[in-house]
């Protein structure tokens, strides 16, 4: 793992303070953090809970690739990505991405890139549970 990249996939609740402490540095002037939270509805339908499943070694490898791409594209110093697995209730946190940079513009752009790309390429799957059943998100057209 690149020394300025921190990737964790955890079955316990994610701690924002851990991501922040990991990226903070005296050479950085700004940190952008994205925190995903479980919404109580999707397309107007009430969500009861979510389940996240990960293909662990590959998910970590893909997240590291994304963080490396972000570091190549923007002058950012440190990136921390933590993703949760297992059953999550409404309001819980599936993902935290923290990006520290000397200047805020790079932190914002790199953080946005990481979450957008993570959702497209990292082998993690989300199952939404409704009152009348459950579906794997995005599985079917």
């Amino acid at each position, binding site marked *: 793992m690149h020394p300025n990249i921190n990737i964790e996939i955890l079955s316990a609740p994610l701690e924002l303070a851990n991501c922040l402490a990991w990226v903070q540095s005296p050479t950085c002037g700004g940190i952008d953090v994205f925190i995903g939270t479980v919404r109580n509805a999707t397309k107007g339908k009430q969500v009861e809970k979510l389940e996240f499943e990960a293909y662990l070694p590959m*998910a970590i490898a893909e997240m590291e690739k994304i963080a490396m791409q972000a570091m190549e594209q923007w002058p950012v110093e440190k990136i921390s990505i933590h993703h949760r697995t297992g059953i999550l209730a409404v309001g819980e946190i599936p993902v935290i991405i923290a990006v520290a940079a000397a200047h805020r513009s790079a932190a914002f752009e790199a953080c946005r890139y990481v979450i957008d790309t993570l959702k497209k390429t990292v082998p993690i799957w989300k199952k939404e549970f409704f009152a009348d059943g459950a579906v794997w998100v995005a599985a079917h057209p």
Partner: protein
Amino acid sequence: MEITILAFGIAKDILGGIRVNITLNEPANIHALKQQLEHNYPPLKELASYMIAVNNNYASDTQTILSTDEIALIPPVSGG
């Protein structure tokens, strides 16, 4: 040769397990694997898309498969 497929998300439901064995004629590539999978498990054709990963990397259709590779069936991802 017989290879083991790791399956996740909806693919695990379609294949009926996290690890499923499948027999392929050698030499086999990703394209041949996909054809065999779709033959054995037709609901795979109804997915929005799916990818095959070999040793933790997404593989192209022409990539050759060895019996020692770790092969995973990756349905549409939805992390984050």
